[in-house]
């Protein structure tokens, strides 16, 4: 039985190339990710970043200016004032670790609406919470 040259390898190679192409095109156009930073490293970043850290009180809120508080490095002392013009999720409170997207304007971090997430308090740490 004469066996035709199998198109399998060609088909596979072309498919893989196509998938890679989609991937490369996307990353080229949309760029890399958004930096994930803590207050200590914010200096010099003017673009949109994802800020993480611990909430430091007092937390002030008003209908006009939203929520105002400070965020501190998880293992450090650098802090930055934050303004968030949306309602934070219910687990938000002083001392909790959160993450919020936004950018620094005039020394104050302005958070984007709906991007503040609180981290679940230590469920898996070996230390008592």
């Amino acid at each position, binding site marked *: 039985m004469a066996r035709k040259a199998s198109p399998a390898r060609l*088909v596979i190679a072309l498919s893989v190339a196509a998938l890679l192409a989609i991937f490369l095109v*996307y990353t080229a156009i949309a760029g890399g990710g958004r930096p994930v930073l803590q207050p200590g490293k914010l200096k010099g970043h003017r673009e949109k970043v994802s800020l993480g850290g611990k909430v430091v009180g007092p937390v002030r809120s008003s209908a006009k200016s939203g929520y105002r508080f400070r965020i501190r490095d998880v293992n450090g002392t650098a802090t930055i004032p934050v303004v968030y013009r949306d309602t934070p999720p219910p687990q938000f409170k002083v001392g909790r670790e959160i993450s919020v997207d936004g950018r620094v304007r005039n020394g104050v971090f302005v958070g984007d609406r709906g991007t503040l997430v609180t981290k*679940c308090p230590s469920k898996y740490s070996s230390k008592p919470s």
Partner: protein
Amino acid sequence: MPELGRAALVLCLGLSLYAAAAGAFAARTRRRRLAASAANALYASFGAAVIASLVLAAALLRHDFTFSYVAGHTSRELPVAYTLSAFWGGQEGSLLLWLLILTAYAAAACALNRRRAPDLVLWVVPVLGGVASFFSFLLVVVASPFGTQPPPLDGSGLNPALQNPYMLAHPPMLYLGYVGLTVPFAFAMGALLSRRADERWIVATRRWTLGAWAFLGVGQLLGAHWAYVEVGWGGYYAWDPVENAALMPWLAATAFLHSVMVQEKKGMLKVWNVLLVILAFGLSLFGTFLTRSGILSSIHSFTEGSIGPWFVGFIAVVTAFSLALVFVRLPLLRARTKLESPISREATFLYNNLLLVALCLTILWGVIFPILSEAVRGEASAVRGPYYNFFLRSFGLPLLLLMGIGPLIAWRRSSLRALRRTFAWPAATAVATGVILLATGAGSSLLGVVAYSFSAFVLASIVVEFALGASARSSLAGESWPVALASLVARNRRRYGGYVVHAAVVLLAVGIAGSSIYDTVREKTLRPGQTLQVGRYAVTYRNSVERRAANAQEFRALVDVRRGGQLIGRMQPGRNWYPAEQQASSEMAIRRDWTRAEDLDLIVQRFNSSDGSIELKALVKPLVNLIWLSGLLFIGGALIALWPDAREQRRLAARYADSSVAAPA
């Protein structure tokens, strides 16, 4: 009693190490009694794990706060069910659950296959013993659930976000899935170690893999439902690393379930199948590592313990060992059959696999991107929803289409004429659906129209498959149509169960498309008497109330819902405050409209005590309930595919009996 628990875990460690070491030695030197002894050690390790689990469970139920774990995760007022669920609510306990399930699966897999494939089980025992040793080691040395302390008056309680029925079902389901992937991995390694190039290992683990995959799928759907109903942000999947951690092994397992069919029919893809099972198992380990190590920023992630590096080491060892083994046995696995045509069922399975693995790897890339970018650039950088959604669409839509194409194409090759005939009806359905959608205004999103049309295509092709099959069978066997349908399914459980699962996936796709592409969101501050318009609904805020429940204070906004001027219901969105844990939770109110399968979700962002107003967020999510319905269909299809088939069992037994090396036990 903690001493008993600790002793049981140490025993479990010793037994698993023995199973691994003695088992490997016995396999190498082919000693029968030693091999039996190693297998017994595996069974005994299950017993030890059961004892350790019972000790922990009893301590939880007794509120024995001398156990640090019990004090850290429960409180006296906690309802019984949640007290029990605290077993897996923390690091140490969840590791113990993992070990329990692992040893249970290991014992069962070895016991069931001991007589049918003894030379395979010979090597499977040490592999399973090795994995069990790792987890026992963690429990004995790194994260013991049996640490003690002077008992406090009351425990710290369970995070209110975890106090709901999902906590009882979601983690155990996921673990049954994750851990289940260990069995096909062990059998694959066993086959390679025993130099068997045949399908025995696949035949032996077919139902295990299907079962693990089904548990993992259902577990994820439960998690999504939990996020939707309880966490209350109106969504069900956030591409959070921990969510992806379950999705990735599931995608790899899905690819595996399909590609083994190609090996079964054509004897091809042997190496690919082994690599896929290694990938699935590796990803399940990686997934649990991600959840526990705190290495990634996630709403689920927790403070770093020392457990991360151990997992990394184990994953590295497993990967290195399995890849080395595959490399060494490569000559054994080479197949001579080739793909005959790019338009054949084998080829569509191949495309399906490529797409699934590509999706899995892009998600993996997104998940580890922060780690990589930090290592390379010194600064962590994360990718978000848009990245994942782009690839879900790019790879997911073709996958959806393939689900419809695959069943309609024959093995080996299909001519265009045959294709034109079989595709006619499904294609027409798809086009008609597209036209109707455009005509009724769904054209606002081309993506939505495409997704729905593809879904229609797949559903039509499934109906065609059932119909053609039943009518062929009915004329062949002279049976009436319903009987023909039943016997068709009974004789081909995997295929037709698979089609039902495909239908479930289509429902899922339609539900996701509807609720994310065609949804409506509105936010407004409302004083009593004021109304918010969202979609077809008018939501009027009446007033708020405060109630006291078992362990919480409940604040609720009473709201009237009207549609077309008619009052159709009352809802009570709000928030809870838990004094013991000093925590709040958002209680989203959901109104389900079953005729339209859509939900109206109301979230109270804030109660303003000064003027009695509320900040209300309202969402209308069309077709979202199809997502949950698809779960039921998914379970049904999986059950059909899993159902034991006596005829098939006899045939397989006969196939391997000729050469079986039944060792006198």
